[in-house]
C-alpha cells in the first residue's frame, strides 16, 4: 500500500532567488485529512503546486529548478507521469476564477473527463454526480462568469470531483466566502470520503474538520501533529503568526 502523498526533502526557489521551500518532507496516508497552516509567504501554495507537477516549470531561464522528490500514490512526479499524477490529484486553486476557464459550468466540470477521452455517457454521469456532490445540479447550463464567489467555489470543487481523484487538494478553500457560504462549504467537505489536504488561514475550520495540522513558516515545516494539541500550544501559534480560534 502506497501513501497518497509523499514529499521528500523538497526545496524550491523562485526566479528572483527567493527560496520558497527549504527541505520539506511530508507523508499523507490514504483517507487522511490534513491542513497546512502558516503565514502568507510560508510556502503553502508553492508546496501545493508541486503536488500536481505544476511546479517546477521546465523552463530554465524562468524558474530555478527544485530539488527533492514528490510521490503521488506511488508515482514519482516527473515529466512522463504528469498526466496520471494530475488524474490522481484534484487541485482546487484559491481563486475560482483561475479554475473556471470554460464558457459554461457544464463545460468546465466536463473538462477533466473529456480530456481523459471517456465515453460520452460516462462523462455525462460524472458531471451529474460531481454537480450533485456540491449540490449545484441546476447550474449546469449557467455561465460561470456570473456566479457568486460561493457558487464559483463549489463549481471549482466539482471540476476536480468529476475526475474522481484519489486526493483532493484545496488552496485556502474558505478565503473570501461569506459566513453562510463558508458554513455550506464546511458541511460539504465534511461529507466527502476522500483523502484531503488543504492550506488555510481559517483555523476554526481546521479545528472542525481536520484532525491533523501542519504548520509551515519560511519554507519549512515547523510543526506536524494532532490539530487540538498544536492549537493548545499558544506560544507555537504566536511564533508563527497564527491566532488561536
Amino acid at each position: 500500500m502506497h501513501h497518497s502523498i509523499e514529499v521528500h526533502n523538497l526545496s524550491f526557489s523562485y526566479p528572483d532567488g527567493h527560496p520558497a521551500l527549504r527541505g520539506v518532507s511530508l507523508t499523507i496516508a490514504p483517507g487522511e485529512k490534513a491542513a497546512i497552516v502558516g503565514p502568507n509567504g510560508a510556502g503553502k501554495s508553492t508546496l501545493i503546486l508541486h503536488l500536481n507537477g505544476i511546479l517546477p516549470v521546465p523552463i530554465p531561464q524562468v524558474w530555478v529548478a527544485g530539488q527533492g522528490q514528490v510521490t503521488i500514490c506511488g508515482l514519482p512526479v516527473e515529466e512522463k507521469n504528469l498526466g496520471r499524477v494530475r488524474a490522481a490529484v484534484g487541485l482546487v486553486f484559491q481563486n475560482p476564477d483561475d479554475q473556471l476557464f470554460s464558457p459554461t459550468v457544464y463545460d468546465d466540470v466536463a473538462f477533466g473527463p473529456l480530456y481523459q477521452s471517456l465515453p460520452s455517457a460516462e462523462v455525462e454521469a460524472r458531471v451529474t454526480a460531481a454537480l450533485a456532490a456540491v449540490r449545484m445540479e441546476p447550474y449546469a447550463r449557467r455561465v460561470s462568469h456570473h456566479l457568486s464567489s460561493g457558487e464559483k467555489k463549489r463549481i471549482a470543487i466539482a471540476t476536480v470531483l468529476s475526475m474522481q481523484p484519489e486526493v483532493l487538494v484545496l488552496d485556502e478553500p474558505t478565503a473570501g466566502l461569506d459566513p453562510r457560504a463558508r458554513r455550506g462549504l464546511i458541511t460539504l467537505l465534511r461529507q466527502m470520503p476522500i483523502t484531503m489536504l488543504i492550506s488555510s488561514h481559517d483555523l476554526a475550520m481546521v479545528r472542525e474538520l481536520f484532525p491533523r495540522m501542519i504548520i509551515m513558516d519560511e519554507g519549512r515545516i515547523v510543526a506536524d501533529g494532532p490539530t487540538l494539541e498544536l492549537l493548545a500550544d499558544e506560544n507555537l501559534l504566536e511564533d508563527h503568526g497564527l491566532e488561536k480560534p
Partner: protein
Amino acid sequence: MHIHFLDPYRPRTSPVHALDPRVKLVLTLAYILTAALTPIAAWPVYILLFSIILSVEILSGLGVGFVLKRAALSLPFVLAALPVIFTNGGKALFSLPIGSWTLTVYAEGLGRFFSVALKSWLSVQAAIVLASSTPFPDLLQAMRAIRIPRLLVAIFGLMWRYLFVLVDEALRLMRARAARSGVIAETGHRSGGSVTWRAHVAGGMAGTLFLRAFDRSERIYLAMVSRGYDGEIRVLPMAAVGSLSWLVLGLGLFLLILLLLFGFFWG
C-alpha cells in the same frame, strides 16, 4: 507566478542608457524617418545607416548579437514586400513558369525589395535599442514631452501596465487546464480528447480572457474616476534637457540629414 521576461528593458550602465529619453526618442524617430525616406537602392547610405546603428549597439553594451536576434522578428513582415519583385518594369532578369502563369523577376523590383527589407531591418534595430535602453515609463514621459497626443500616450501606458496582468491571467488559466489534464493509466486508452474539442476549449479560454479583460477595464476606469481622473494622466514635469543632450541631439540630426542628402544626391 509573474512574468518579467517580456519587458524588453535591459539595465546597463552605458552612455546610450544615460542619454536623455527625449533625445533618444527623437533621434530614433529621425533615424527611422531617414531610413524610410532614403531613395531605393542607395546602397552606400544603407551601409552608413547600418554602421551608425551598429556603433550605437556596441556603445549601449547590449551586445550586437542580442539586438540582431531580436531584429529577426521583422523578417516575416518583409515577406509582405515580396510581390514587389514581380510587379515592376525595367530589365527582366528571369521568368518562373507556375502552371499557366509566368512570374517575371525584374532587376529594379529586386532592388526595391532588398531596399524595403534593409530599411525595415534597420528601423527595427533602432526601435529595439531604444526599448532596451530606456525604461518604459521614461519613454512615455518622453512621448508626452515631444507632444504626442496624450490620449495615445495614456493608451500606451495602460496597455503596458495591464499587458502583464493579462499575461498572468492567461498563464493561470493554462495552469488550471494543465492541472486537470489527467491521463488514464489503462493500456490501449488514449487520453487527451479530440483536436476539435481541444480547439473548442482553447476558444472558450480566449473568450473567458476577453470577458475578464473587459470587466477589469471597467473596474480600472471606475477606480481612476473615483480618484479624480478626467481624461488626462498627470505626471511630474521632467527636468530641462541638458546642454550635452542638446549637443547630442543636434549632432545626431545633422548626421542623419547629411545622410539623407547624400542619399538623394546618389539616387
